[in-house]
C-alpha cells in the first residue's frame, strides 16, 4: 500500500513536470516517471516476499522482475545523461541566439497551414537568449 502510494505520487509528479515548458524540469519529470515504473515492476512480484534471491534460499522473492528493473535503471541512466547533454546544448544555442535556420525545416514550417501552426507558432530565434532559459516549444 505504501509502495503503491509512492508509485502513484512519483508518477503524478513525473507527468506534471514532463508537461512543463522547461527542459530540465522535463528531464526531472522523466526521471521520476522512471522511478515510478521501476517501483511498479518490483511490487508486481509474486509471491510477496522480502528475502533476496540469493542461494541458499527459503522463500526468495521473484528474481525476474528484479533483473528487468536492473536493466531499466541502467538504461534510464543512459537516457537521462543523454537528455541532460541535449539540455545543455539546447540552452547554449538559445543563449547564443545563433540557431541556424535549417532550410528544410523552415520550408516545412512555412508550408504548414498558417492557421495550424503550433500553439505558440513563434520563431525560435525571435526570443532566443532573452531569458537564458531552457524552454521548450
Amino acid at each position, binding site marked *: 500500500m505504501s509502495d*503503491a502510494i509512492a508509485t502513484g505520487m512519483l508518477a503524478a509528479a513525473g*507527468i506534471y513536470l514532463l508537461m512543463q515548458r522547461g527542459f530540465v524540469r522535463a528531464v526531472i519529470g522523466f526521471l521520476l516517471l522512471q522511478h515510478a515504473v521501476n517501483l511498479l515492476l518490483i511490487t508486481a512480484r509474486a509471491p510477496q516476499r522480502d528475502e533476496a534471491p540469493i542461494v541458499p534460499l527459503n522463500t526468495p522473492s521473484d528474481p525476474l522482475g528484479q533483473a528487468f528493473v536492473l536493466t531499466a535503471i541502467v538504461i534510464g541512466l543512459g537516457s537521462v545523461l543523454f537528455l541532460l547533454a541535449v539540455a545543455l546544448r539546447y540552452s547554449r544555442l538559445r543563449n547564443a541566439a545563433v540557431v541556424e535556420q535549417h532550410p528544410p525545416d523552415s520550408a516545412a514550417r512555412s508550408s504548414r497551414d498558417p492557421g495550424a501552426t503550433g500553439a505558440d507558432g513563434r520563431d525560435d530565434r525571435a526570443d532566443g537568449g532573452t531569458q537564458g*532559459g531552457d524552454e521548450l516549444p
Partner: protein
Amino acid sequence: MLALVVSHLLVALALPWVAARNTRAAFTVAALPPAAALVWTLGHAGAVLGGQEIVESLAWAPRLGLEITFRLDPLALLMTVLVSGIGVLVLLYCPGYFGPGSADGRRSAPLLLAFAGVMLGLVLADDLLLVYVFWELTTICSFLLVGQSGISREQRRSAMQALVVTIFGGLVMLLGFVVLGEAAGTYRISELVADPPGGGAMAAAAVLILIGAFTKSAQLPFHNWLPAAMVAPTPVSAYLHAASMVKAGVFLVARLTPVFAGVVAWPVLTAVFGLLTMIVAGWRALHEYDLKILLAYGTVSQLGFVMVLVGAGTHTGAVAGTAMLLAHGLFKSALFLVVGIVDHEAGSRDIRELSGLGRRLPWLVVIAVPAAASMAGLPPTLGFLGKEAAFEVFLHGGAGQAAIAAGLVLGSVFTVGYSARLLWGAFANKPGIPATAAHAPGAGLLLPAAVPALAGVVLGVVYPAVDELSAAYAAVFEAGTDPYHLALWHGLNLALLCSLIALAGGLVVHAARTPITRVRGRLVNPLNAQRAYERSMALLERVAVGVTGRVQAGSLPTYLGIILLTVLAVSGTALLTRSTPIEQFRAWDRILQVPLAIAILIAVAGVVRARRRLTAVLLVGVIGYGIGGIFIIDGAPDLALTQFLVETLTLVAFVFVLRRLPVRFTQSDPAPGLRWVKMLIAVGGGVFMAFASMIFSSARQTPSGVSEQYIARAEQGAGATNVVNAIIVDFRAFDTIGEISVLAVAATGVASLILTSRHERRRRRGSLPITERSAADESAAPGNAGAAGPIRPGTGEDPQGRDPRQEEVRE
C-alpha cells in the same frame, strides 16, 4: 519460367550502362529476353494446348506458406505471346523512334525491359499474392515510363494520376485477394479454379477484386488515367497502354471468372461497367482530334468490350473474350506504332493538321488498313472472328442478354466509326488543309508495326489455330452440347446481321461526323471523370493539411496529454472492469517502508514546487536514494546497489549541467489556465499507477514458471548463487549485450553533443580575422618558424601560438 522473369530483370539492371553508350544496341539487347520468352513459350504451346500444364514452384518462405509459383496454361500462353511478342516488336521499333542518344530512349530501354519482365511474371503467376506483387510492379514501371524526365507539368500530373488510380485499385484488390484466399484456404489460382469456395465472403471479394481490375483496365469511372497517360512516348503507349498492362485487369477477370462462377454480382458488374465503358469511351473517341488520344479512348472502349465477354462466365463468352484479347493486342499495338510513325515523320498527330499523308506514305496505309479493319471487325480479320463470337454470346438469352447484345452493337457502331475516323484523319486528303510534308519512314519503324497488323489478318484466315487456343481456355466452362467455334462463316445468322448493322451504322456515324460533333457540343456533361478525380485529389490534400495541422500541434504537453488520456481511457477502463480483486490489502509489509515512502512523498512535493534548479536536483537525489532504500526492504540488494550508484552519477551530471543554466527555473507559463488541466491529467495518471500497483501486486499468488526455473537452475546452470546476477549475465545475456550497446550509443551521443559545444566555443573565441593573422604569421615565419611566436590577445590558450587553427593557416 522463373529464370525467364529473372533474366529480364537482370538484363534490365545492366542495361543503363549499355544505353549510356549506344541506345540502339541497348534496345537490341533489351529485345533478347522477351524473344527468349516468346520462343520458350511457343515451344511449349503444343503441350499446353494438348491439356498439359507446365508448373514451376519455388517455396521461398515455406513456414508462411509463401511460394513463387508459375504456371503456363492456355490463358497464360495467350498473354505471354502478346506480352513478349509485342514487347520484342516495340523494343525493335524504339531505336528508330527515339533516335540515337535521346535521353528518353536511354531511360526507356531498361524500364521497358523491366516492365516486360514483371508483366511476364504477372501473366504466368499462379499465386494471388504473387499476382499482386507483379501487378504493383507494372504500375511503378508505368509511372516511370509515363513520367519520363518529369520536366513538364503534364508528364508529372499524368504519371501521378496513373499511379494513384491504379495503386488505389491495387490495394482494394489486395483486400479482395485476402478475402478470397482466406475463404478458400489457398492462394493458388489453379486450386481456386479447381475448387471454388462458397459463402457470403465471396461477393465481397468479387466486388473488391473487380475494383482493382477496373482501375487497371481503365473502366468507368476510373478510365481517365489512360488518355492522360498518352503523354508517354508512343512506343510506351503501344506496349503498356494498349497491348499489355491495361490488359492485366481483363486478364485477371478472365482468370478468376471460373472461381466466381457462383457469384451473381460478377457477370452483372462486368457487363454493366464494361458496356458503359465501351459506349461512353467509344463516343468520346468519335470526337477526338489527337490520333493518339483517339486510340486511347478506343482502347478504353475495347477493354470494356472484352470485360463484358470474359466476365460473362460462359463457354462462348470465354472463346470470344480470348479471341478479342488477342485481336485487340495485335491491332491496337500496330495502330499505335503507325500513329507513332505519323507523328515522327509528319511532326503532328492532329487530325486538323494532317492531310494527304496516304499518298506520301503508302506503305503505312498498307499497314494501317488491315489493323483498322480488325478493330472495326471486318472479315477476314481476327477482330471479325472475335466480334461474331461476342454477339453470339448474348443472342440466345432473355431480355437482359438481349439488352447487352444491343449495347454491344451500339458500341461496335462507335468502334467502326472511330476506326474510320482514324484512317480518314491520318491519311485522307482534307479539303482546305495543305498537304502535310513527311519523310519516308525506314524499315526499322515499318516492320515492327507491320507484323502485328498482318498477324491479325493471318490469324483470322487460319482461325482454327486461334480457336484451339480459345477452346483450351474455355474448357473450364460448361460447353453444352454444341460448343461454339470460331469461324469466318457460320452461315446467315443473327450475329452476322449484328456485324452488318455495326458496320453500316459506323460508316453512317463517320459520314455524319460534323453534325454529330455539333450535337455533342450541345449536350450537357454533368459527370466528368477527370474533374471528379481532380476534385477528390484536392479534397484529399486539404484534409491531409487540416489533419496534420491539428494533430501536429508542435507542442510537447499536447502530445503527452493526448497519450496519457488515451492510456487512462483504455487501460484505465480495463483496470476498473478487471476480474482480479485486491486481496492483500495491507498498509505496509514492513514498518520501515512507511518512513521511506513519506520521505519520498515530501521530496516529490518539494521537487514540483521548487523554484531553484539546485533544490529540485537535490530533492531528486533524495527520491533516488529513497527508492534504493525501498529496494533493500523489498529484498533486492542488487537493485539497491545499482540505484545508489546510478543516483550518484545522475546527481553529478545534473550539477555539471546546472552550472551552465540560470539558478532559477523560468516561471513563465504562457497559458496559466492550462495548469489545472495539466495537474488533472497528472493526478489521473498517478491514481492510475497506484491502482495498477495494488492490483498487480496481488494478481499473482505463485511465482511464474520462468522465475521458478531461473531459481532452480541458477546454481547448477550458471554457477551463481545470486539468481539476479545469473539472469543478467547468463540466462538473459543477450539482453545485457543490448543494454550495453544502448549505453554505448548514449555515451557517443553525449560526447558528440558536448564536444560540438566545445568546438564552437573555441571557434567563437578565436574570431580574429584570418587575413590579418596570416599576414602576421608570414612576417614571423621566416627564420623562427619553430621558435616562440608572437603571443596574440584573444587566443590566450597557447602562448606558443601553436593552436591547430594556426597550423591550418600556415599550410
